[in-house]
């Protein structure tokens, strides 16, 4: 059927089952936006107009992380595209599948420094799994099909499609293809045929699995470390829990791996790394076998890579071969999708038990700082959130102290419950992500935990949340400071608080009210308890500002580069 490429794009989105697009229009992308009206695609695909392209990018990311489906985000050329870049990088570092679609100036103007022209593919090259500039109208459908396949397959990640504006107006022949047919033709088909030459069976290697089983048989103090790979891999969590319960060894996770096993599971030692528990960190220094599943061992996990799990044989299970030996030298690796690898291991793994070793690990207790004043402590606040919420809750965070408190104290039960910018550490991520997560999961309670610094970065998305009636509860930890940086200054820079004091408002309650949010400021745990209960019950847009002590620190803390038992705070 003959149609313009702007319509082809919409048809391709429907092929992929896309129901929601987050974005912001502009001069070059207007033909695509016209399709929502002209041919009624707005009936089938809901477009969420954000306040800023960055908010749209985070929302598409939040949508993707909370569902495992591919998120979609539109933006115009030039500043529209560059405003996406922080969001693209955020998705890239945490392996979130998002397809970003931008439209550049017409081909004849590309390279002429035209109005709102920028080299989008050049800029996004280091922060995408793959990117495209579509100049040939005939290739558009093919490119979109490939882009979605790449975004969701293997280790997921963001893909950018930049389209020259003249392409969107060009008529081509288009036939809709069901998703299952995509791999049989076009670019995708060619790619798959090529890799098939080298790839007889896309399966983990059986001998590698047997070797791990032998290593487990020889181990006396095994430890399991799960990362975001267990969350991203479809249906991997039940296999993971089966694995750890058969093994009976202590289990830790990176922040991205939170939810791989319930936080109240008897084998769970808590988060690892810079702000991880004593039990998890000390266990890495004592274990004789460390089994890592889908974790890239970043500098926040393996703080001193050359000393990390020094006494252990290290086995790394990952889908991305390039992660093996990148940060920490390993003794053995298995390449494959986490679910499939664990399934194959579980089929052969006998039951083990290490009561003595478990006792040794769990004897390490993390201290909790007592309240220093009448104000609620971060732990008390999160304990109250725990009290009123269950596994039907999604918690998004921004970045800083509040993020670590949520990771440490919230009782996550399931994967995809925590949505947080781990790798890139993007302040201002949480609100957009909460909007995306709530739209994808209207029946779930979505709580946006934030700090006063992070909240100010992208809080204009309150307009989006209100307009589209996406009720979320913001819990704002207001310590009138950029707390995490301040904490470093307090501990390592002689308490010189250079530019980390935020003694300048705004009045957050009035701000939230301006967007028609219910808003209240509290400082004691009793007040928070009452207001939070009210917020959950109301089902409305809510902002609770918690006035907390500026001196509240994230503890434990191991400084970057130190060994896993060299606590600066514990």
């Amino acid at each position, binding site marked *: 059927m003959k149609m313009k490429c702007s319509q082809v794009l919409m048809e391709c989105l429907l092929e992929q089952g896309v129901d929601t697009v987050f974005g912001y229009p502009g001069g070059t992308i207007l033909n695509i936006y016209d399709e929502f009206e002209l041919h009624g695609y707005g009936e089938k695909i809901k477009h969420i107009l954000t306040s800023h392209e960055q908010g749209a990018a985070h929302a598409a990311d939040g949508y993707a992380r909370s569902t495992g489906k591919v998120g979609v985000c539109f933006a115009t050329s030039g500043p529209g595209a560059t405003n996406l870049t922080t969001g693209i990088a955020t998705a890239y570092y945490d392996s979130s599948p998002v397809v970003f679609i931008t439209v550049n100036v017409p081909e004849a103007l590309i390279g002429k420094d035209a109005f709102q022209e920028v080299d989008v593919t050049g800029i996004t*090259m280091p922060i995408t799994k793959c*990117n495209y500039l579509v100049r040939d109208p005939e290739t558009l459908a093919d490119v979109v099909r490939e882009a979605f396949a790449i975004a969701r*397959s*293997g280790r997921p990640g963001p893909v950018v499609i930049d389209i020259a504006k003249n392409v969107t107006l060009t008529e081509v022949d288009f036939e809709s293809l069901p998703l299952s047919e995509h791999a049989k033709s076009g670019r995708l088909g060619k790619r798959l045929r*090529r890799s098939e030459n080298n*790839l007889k069976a896309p399966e983990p290697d059986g001998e590698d699995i047997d070797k791990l089983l032998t290593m487990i048989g020889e181990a006396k103090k095994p430890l399991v470390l799960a990362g975001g790979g267990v969350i991203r891999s479809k249906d991997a969590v039940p296999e993971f829990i089966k694995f750890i319960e058969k093994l009976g060894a202590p289990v830790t996770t990176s922040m991205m791996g939170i939810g791989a096993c319930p936080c109240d599971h008897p084998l769970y030692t808590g988060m690892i790394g810079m702000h991880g528990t004593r039990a998890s960190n000390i266990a890495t220094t004592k274990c004789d076998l460390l089994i890592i599943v889908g974790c890239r061992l970043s500098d926040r996990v393996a703080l001193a890579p050359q000393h990390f799990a020094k006494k252990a044989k290290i086995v790394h299970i990952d889908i*991305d*071969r*390039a992660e093996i030996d990148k940060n920490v030298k390993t003794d053995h690796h298995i390449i494959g999708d986490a679910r499939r690898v664990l399934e194959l291991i579980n089929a052969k793994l006998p039951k083990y038990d290490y009561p003595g070793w478990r006792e040794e690990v769990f004897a390490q207790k993390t201290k909790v700082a007592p309240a220093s004043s009448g104000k609620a402590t971060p732990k008390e606040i999160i304990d109250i959130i725990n009290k009123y919420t269950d596994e039907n809750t999604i918690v998004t965070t921004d970045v800083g102290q509040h993020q670590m408190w949520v990771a440490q104290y919230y009782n996550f039960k399931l994967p995809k419950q925590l949505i947080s910018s781990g790798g890139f550490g993007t302040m201002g991520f949480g609100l957009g992500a909460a909007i995306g997560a709530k739209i994808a999961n209207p029946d779930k309670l979505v709580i946006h935990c934030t700090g006063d610094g992070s909240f100010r970065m992208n809080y204009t998305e309150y307009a989006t949340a209100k307009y589209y009636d996406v009720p979320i509860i913001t819990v704002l930890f207001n310590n009138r400071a950029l707390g995490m940086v301040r904490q470093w200054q307090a501990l390592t820079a002689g308490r010189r608080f250079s530019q980390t004091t935020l003694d300048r408002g705004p009045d957050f309650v009035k701000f939230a009210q301006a967007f028609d949010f219910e808003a209240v400021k509290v400082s004691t745990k009793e007040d928070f308890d009452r207001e939070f209960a009210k917020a959950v019950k109301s089902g409305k847009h809510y902002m609770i500002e918690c006035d907390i002590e500026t001196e509240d620190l994230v503890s434990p803390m191991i400084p970057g580069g130190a060994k896993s038992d060299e606590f600066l705070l514990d």
Partner: protein
Amino acid sequence: MSEIRRHTLSVLVENAAGVLSHVTRFFSRKGYNIESLAVGPTDDASVSRITIEVSADDAAAEQIINQLRKMFSVYSVKELPRKTSVRRELVLYKVKAEEPDMRNEIIQIVNIFRASIIDVSLKTLTIALIGDEDKADAMQNLLKNFGILELARTGVVALERGESTLVDETKENKEFNLGKNMN
């Protein structure tokens, strides 16, 4: 950090715009300068071969190779060790040759090196030499005395000796391809 040495990488990529800059980006990100780079299509017009020479320590070279191998537009990467590969480079020298005896002397050198003269003017000779870097350097050293006006090198191209090729099915190749599988 281990010692810095020369690595020759042979990379098969999708023959498309942007792929070369994507490949070279990994080297600049790590702070390594590419010493020589040669790109051209292969027997399959949709596939190009890039031969890269870089000085780097072994761990960094390995990481660069691994990151290249996971790129969708990269089909295969292999380091070609000097001992087990054949390597050639084409070098063009434009040399001053104003006096007849100078001219004769240059022609003799050209013959010894089995190079060829591909252009002549009243005052210059242009010589083409095919060989590995050592041969090219030796020739350059001799011609220096006559005055080299201009020099152009294509960069090394290399292939493995014997039957093995870049796309041989190895366990590692299989592992990288598993991550790229889209079924």
